[in-house]
């Protein structure tokens, strides 16, 4: 089920949240909308889901005009950052909600909710209230609830944003596996570039209400369209007036072709990674190395080295 959004404009007062945005999501893909907060990515997602209304532009879901169709008739799945659990309903009733609204027979609801709870590993928590679950469990419940109605597209708004780092990582892997099994067209919003690079098939970088670049994670990382995308997708440093990735800074003990002389000002170890901060005549680059490389070069504050950018 594809999503086509064309010419989307959204203003809040004088603030332009989305400025003539076109987005196209292919059927069955897992797409990440990535960008800094306030950049418009959540607004775009909410407009696709029908929770916000665009000032201009069209949304088509699976080729069908959805602009102006209220959220309750779009048949989308939506997962919120803060779970939006129905606090007075059990886990079972939460997941069953959409099916009950659609007046499905009782035994079908029971079977379907059972399957979904198994899928999200919450089968033994069916009778609990959301307040008796952890954050990660609540978000899995919310995901099961969204999937219960067999939505044409699944939209997730910063789904892991309220969770701690370890649970975040688990849920991220799990979302990726789930998507590989179900193939439901999925769009998720995140401001975490690592999350976006790791999970998604396709990345859409949004900033200041505009789309900066669209492509596969590899494309965007290797061939960023501009400095903003480059900076947003990973660490950067400047060498010889150019923006480059710190792992693309090569260090030599003696002069080589195209290299410039630098003095090491600080060496910092972070687990297996080593960061070397340096000073050249015109800039202060830093390099990302592994432990072996750093030891081989015997890097220490005050060492004299030659640096250049890898091609």
């Amino acid at each position, binding site marked *: 089920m594809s999503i086509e959004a064309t010419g989307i404009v959204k203003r809040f007062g004088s603030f332009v949240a989305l400025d003539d945005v076109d987005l196209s999501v292919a059927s069955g893909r897992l797409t990440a909308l990535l960008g800094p907060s306030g950049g418009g990515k959540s607004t775009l997602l909410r407009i696709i889901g029908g929770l916000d209304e665009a000032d201009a532009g069209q949304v088509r879901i699976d080729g069908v005009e959805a602009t102006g169709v209220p*959220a309750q008739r779009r048949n989308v799945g939506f997962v919120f950052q803060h779970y939006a659990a129905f606090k007075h309903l059990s886990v079972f009733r939460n997941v069953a909600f959409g099916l009950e609204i659609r007046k499905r027979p009782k035994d079908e609801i029971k079977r379907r909710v059972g399957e979904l709870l198994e899928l999200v590993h919450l089968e033994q928590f069916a009778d609990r209230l959301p307040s008796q679950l952890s954050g990660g469990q609540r978000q899995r419940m919310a995901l099961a609830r969204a999937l219960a109605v067999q939505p044409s597209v699944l939209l997730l708004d910063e789904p892991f944003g309220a969770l701690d780092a370890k649970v975040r990582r688990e849920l991220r892997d799990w979302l990726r596996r789930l998507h590989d099994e179900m193939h439901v067209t999925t769009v998720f919003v995140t401001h975490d570039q690592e999350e976006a690079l790791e999970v998604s098939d396709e990345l859409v970088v949004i900033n200041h209400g505009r789309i900066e670049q669209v492509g596969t994670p590899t494309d965007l990382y290797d061939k960023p369209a501009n400095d903003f995308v480059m900076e947003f997708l990973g660490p950067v440093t400047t060498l010889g007036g150019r923006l480059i990735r710190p792992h693309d800074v090569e260090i030599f003990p003696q002069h080589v072709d195209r290299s410039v002389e630098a003095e090491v000002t600080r060496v910092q170890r972070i687990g297996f990674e080593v960061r070397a901060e340096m000073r050249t005549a015109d800039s202060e680059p830093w390099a990302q190395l592994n432990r072996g490389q750093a030891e081989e070069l015997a890097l220490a504050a005050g060492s004299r080295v030659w640096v250049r950018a890898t091609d």
Partner: protein
Amino acid sequence: MGERRGRLLQRSIALGYVGVLVIVPLFVITWRALADGWSGFVSALSSEQAVTAFRLTAEIAVAAVAINTVFGVGVALLITRYRFRGRRFLGSLADLPISVSPIVVGFALVLVYGPTNGWFGKSLAHANIQVIFALPGMILATAFVTMPLVLREVVPVLEEEGLDQEQAARVLGANAVQRFRRITLPVIRPALTYGIVLSLARAIGEFGAVKVVSGNVSGVGQTQTVPLLIEERVEQIEPGSYQLAFVLILVTVLAIVLVSLKRSKESVS
């Protein structure tokens, strides 16, 4: 040692305050009401005047509270769910009835709906609708006085819960009525119950505003509520006022105790 004495002092002050203001007067009423024994109760409550007064009080209270429940929830939703010009003003306007003297409320209603020189009085009289010195006026007065009670209980809950659950229900296919019944209502139910009980308690006891608009007609087609009957008996030095007062207090206290018991049980589970 000093800390303990301080705490003891604090507790005595709090207890003394509540005692002087609430417990002693209630105790005196109860004591007087029970002094004449069972027969005193029966004669105070069984006269035709008393029975009609109780029925009228109940009718007015139920009608006023029903009105305020519907509009209280409606206005609470309006204030918390929509951004519009005058939203804050509406919120503070709803608090007005608490600070305006009930007598003034009564007079204001007479000035608006009064049959002789009220604003709408003439046209209402032409249409043969009597508001002042009749049941509608008394319901209006009671509704005015109890207006903020439901609203003030419900607004903070709606504000705290935010829109997430309703939006989630919306994308799952629930229409406005289904969202209200399945999500909003369960969320506000404890607060709403408490607001309704407070309104009922206040409505049963309302005196000032009702007195002004009622005309206090006793007998056939009467407009005498229980508080008005109590006043009459006190002024005429007739027996039976303590028993009536005791019943009003009992109903109020029971209602509030039941609701707070239910509330604390819900917060435990």
